[in-house]
């Protein structure tokens, strides 16, 4: 589904991302793990053509993202609050996204029924604009909106951060429903190793812009990852 070819992104000669090759097949739930500055958000921004690659390119379902806009109809994302429109109510925002994806209001209402427990009665029919919602509730809106209109590729940057514990569990369940769906590819970045190993079928570890690990999730993946990151700390203390 997604093919990355010798992709680099440099800021003033400093390479912040350097992926020689990466292929994410259709239907996979792929987790992206790495410390701050590892290049996760940079990669997502390149995938969404929000920044320009220094070299190389990304192909999303046969569409090269920086050449054509044809990837937009089947791709959706929630990266940060700049994907929300502050002066709309949550309903209006969902309707807006729905209309962009060819759904009318009834379709959107129907879609939202599945998320009533996810919203915990706090979001729909409230009297607040998105800008006045708490960070956690804003995030819920953004995540749900990215599932509207049956996109084929869903990109979520740190979806678990800022969510309350029960919503984290609900989100894991929600992502889990896509596990056996060969149509939908999910890309999720997270700092929470436990969550990401639980829901993802494959984990790609980025470090300083490079892929350092690429593993299919198994029983021992969590231990492996914890080992990998604590090893880093050990190495650092040795150097000091």
């Amino acid at each position, binding site marked *: 589904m997604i093919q990355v070819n010798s992709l680099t992104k440099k800021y003033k000669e400093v390479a912040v991302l350097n992926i020689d090759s990466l292929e994410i097949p259709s239907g996979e739930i792929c987790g992206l793990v790495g410390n701050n500055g590892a290049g996760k958000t940079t990669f997502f921004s390149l995938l969404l053509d929000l920044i320009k690659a220094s070299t190389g390119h990304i192909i999303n379902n046969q569409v090269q993202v920086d050449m054509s806009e044809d990837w937009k109809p089947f791709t959706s994302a929630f990266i940060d609050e700049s994907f929300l429109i502050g002066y709309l*109510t949550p309903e209006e925002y969902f309707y*807006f996204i729905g209309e962009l994806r060819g759904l009318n209001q009834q379709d959107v209402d129907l879609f939202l029924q599945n998320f009533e427990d996810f919203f915990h009665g706090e979001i729909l029919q409230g009297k607040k604009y998105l800008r006045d919602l708490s960070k956690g509730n804003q995030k819920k809106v953004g995540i749900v909106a990215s599932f509207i209109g049956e996109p084929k590729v869903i990109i979520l940057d740190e979806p678990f951060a800022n969510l309350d514990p029960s919503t984290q569990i609900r989100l894991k369940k929600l992502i889990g429903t896509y596990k056996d769906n060969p149509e939908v590819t999910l890309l999720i970045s997270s700092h929470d190793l436990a969550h990401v190993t639980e829901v993802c079928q494959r984990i790609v570890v980025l470090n300083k812009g490079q892929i350092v690990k690429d593993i299919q999730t198994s029983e021992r993946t969590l231990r492996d990852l914890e080992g990998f990151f604590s090893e880093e700390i050990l190495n650092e203390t040795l150097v000091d």
Partner: protein
Amino acid sequence: MLTSFIQLQWKSFFRSASLSSNLIIKILMGFFALYMMVSFAILGTSIYFLLEQELGLEPLETVNRFMIYYLAMDLLARYMLQKMPVVNIRPLLYLPFKKSKIVHFSLWKTILSFFNIIHAFVLVPFTVVLLIKGYDALAVIAWFLAISALIFCNNFINIFINAINWVFFIVIGSLIILGALQYYQVFDISLWTGPIFHSLYKTPITALIPVLLLIGFYQIAFHYFKSNLYLDSGLATKQKDGKTEQLQWVNRFGSVGVFLKNDIKLIKRNKRSKTNTLISFLFVFYGLLFFTGALEMYEGPFWRMFAAIFVTGGFLFSFGQFVPSWDSSYYPLMMSQNIRYRDYLNSKWWLMVMATLVSLVMASFYLYFGWEVYLAVVVGACYNIGVNSYMVLWGGAYVKTPIDLTSNKKAFGDSQAFNAKTLLLTIPKLVIPMLLYALGYYTIGPIYGYGLVLLVAVLGFAFKEKVFDIILKVYKAEKYKTLAAYKQKN
């Protein structure tokens, strides 16, 4: 402690994202400020002689008569332009500063604003001239202090009314009404207020009243801010109840309607865009200056077209020049969602066309000045729709100022909106229709001037899709730069 405050301010100014990229603009603003100072100083020195010799009036009395308008204009200018004293207060609350110190500092910061200092450039020379001319020294100084105190009072009044929009409209409304009444010699408020201001000179002891008033205002402001220096009261951002709106009537615009709905909500629900829109409709009255012959220098065919463009173009210019900046806070969404650029721009275009037509209807009172005047307005509207609507969209692609929708400040005179490219684009916006009109006017006849402008407008309208292609290319070329610029918030 004070020095650390000042240091913070210093750093926030010099490290702001806009500074490095827009130093030239800052310098230009500096020149503008200098220009204002010089012209105020010239006014201050010359007004005495002007009033006495040219008009044969008693200078101080005349100045006092118009003082009420001066102060009202000052208040208006402050309301629109002066920025509020938001020292970044929140982070300071957790630090070991006394609250009273924080409040004193932010209040004093407003006192040092350009809007207070500029008046000294007119008041001081005028006072000096009065002294030289042998007015009673003590009385003149008392008068000077009193007027200065009143100007500083304005400073604090502005802080209070800033949160309340209707005050602004009351002030501007009464100003227009009183001004008109005076112009048509129905009722002259300055006859009543003049003596009041003059008594500050005649009985110098009364000068204490404005000074006391100022101290009072300071105290009120101080206590008000001090008692509200909590995250959940004074520093909390006000929230209005949200209401989901359907706006069914917009649906008939088809795919453009999706965005149009958002744009209407954008204007309705955000302070900045709301003020901008309301003010832009005041441009409808701008033509009065020209068509009534109120100002001699504005007579002549050039200016007639100039005014006509502005009468219906207020919204177009003030809103259009910031497309796509209005959407800056969620531009990444717009760029990655299933959105066709053409639809997006088309909706902005329709919005401007609608506003132009509304202004045209509002401007129908110009018929009172003769059908020819209204014809100019109609032709101006056509040019706005046919040519200027593209020009502002085009220019907007180069304006990369992120807009903070929730704040009212900088709704005018946003320095970053002016750059070489947008300035160049004002040529087709204003100069070309003026030239075309003059060309027709002087060669064949007045009506043909309109005809030429109309012809260009119709051509522009006919080639809409072609022009949109060009604009789309510009937007696409600027996409990454725009996204990066919007990411930097001041």
